[in-house]
């Protein structure tokens, strides 16, 4: 099994790239919304889900199951 440092060496740039793409996508949504005529708050449950997902990623946690928690968040459990 790889050490944590080896995993970080291998994954850092791809993780950086994924974060940049996410940031750019959120900026894109904001810019498009700013250009719309009646632009109040954008009410869309998918945006709420993305924001909740970002909170999960930013939480300090010893539970190594971020991907599982994100997938559960994005699941229709009703």
């Amino acid at each position: 099994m790889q050490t944590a440092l080896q995993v970080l060496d291998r994954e850092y740039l791809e993780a950086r790239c994924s974060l940049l793409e996410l940031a750019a996508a959120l900026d894109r949504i904001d810019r498009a919304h700013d250009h719309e005529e009646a632009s109040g708050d954008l009410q869309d449950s998918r945006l709420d889900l993305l924001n909740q997902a970002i909170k999960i990623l930013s939480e300090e946690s010893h539970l190594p199951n971020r991907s599982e928690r994100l997938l559960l968040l994005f699941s229709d459990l009703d």
Partner: protein
Amino acid sequence: MQIIQPHYHAIARTAQDYEKMAMSGVVAVAEPAFWAGFDRLYPETFLDYFRQISEFEPTRAAEYGIKHYCWVAVNPKEAENPTLSHEVLKHMPEFYEKPNVLGVGEIGFHKTTKNEEEIFEAQVEQAIKYDQLILIHTPHLQDKVRGTKRTLEVLSHMNVNPERVWIDHVEEHTIREPLEAGYWVGFTLYPVTKCSPKRACDMLEMYGHERILVNSSADWGPSDPFTLQMCVMQYRARGYSVQDAIEIFHNNPARFLGQNPKFDIKPIQLETIEEEITDMV
């Protein structure tokens, strides 16, 4: 749609790339002088490399109907060796006489060291003296901001015409200053470590398309010359017309590179032809 690939390292790619680029509308590529993956030891090694990109590559590209142009320079990584670099610089003017050499590039910073700066300035001075276009590489990742700022500081003390200088590999955090100073800028579409097609389209939407070039910079690394076509597709998917895309992916490189009269591909404009429909019955 016709496309110009303004930054492409052909010697690191196979003829199959030329074939597929030709099939996807690429009419010309321009090849800046580049790091070979290891530091070269002898001035003559550079000169043979310049011969390869100025004499051999045009013939290989021509087999697929693609025009090949190039640039000569000591790249930023090898500029760390000033003795070797000055030896190479002595011979670079011979190559400005070649029919496909467009200018001096890629030069600039890798780690933004004093040695790199000395050779950067020497190459800019030579480009000015010989009236050559200038192509500047900006550093990767965490070094990019510092290197870009230093590039602009050095240029501000030199007698360059910004319209004849292309500052490449800009991203969201480095585009504004060079563009506002009147330089051309380039987005490099490169997997993982540089800009993506979507982010390039974002910047086109934010900054317009004046003095902006888009390239794949495809080389011996994990790169792909068809990121340029992916960007065209992404741009068109956002509702922009074919002519809008032509302005960015064909006409802008034609405008910048065409400042050297050797580059003879002109901007193009789509035209609708009114045809009389005849009754065939």
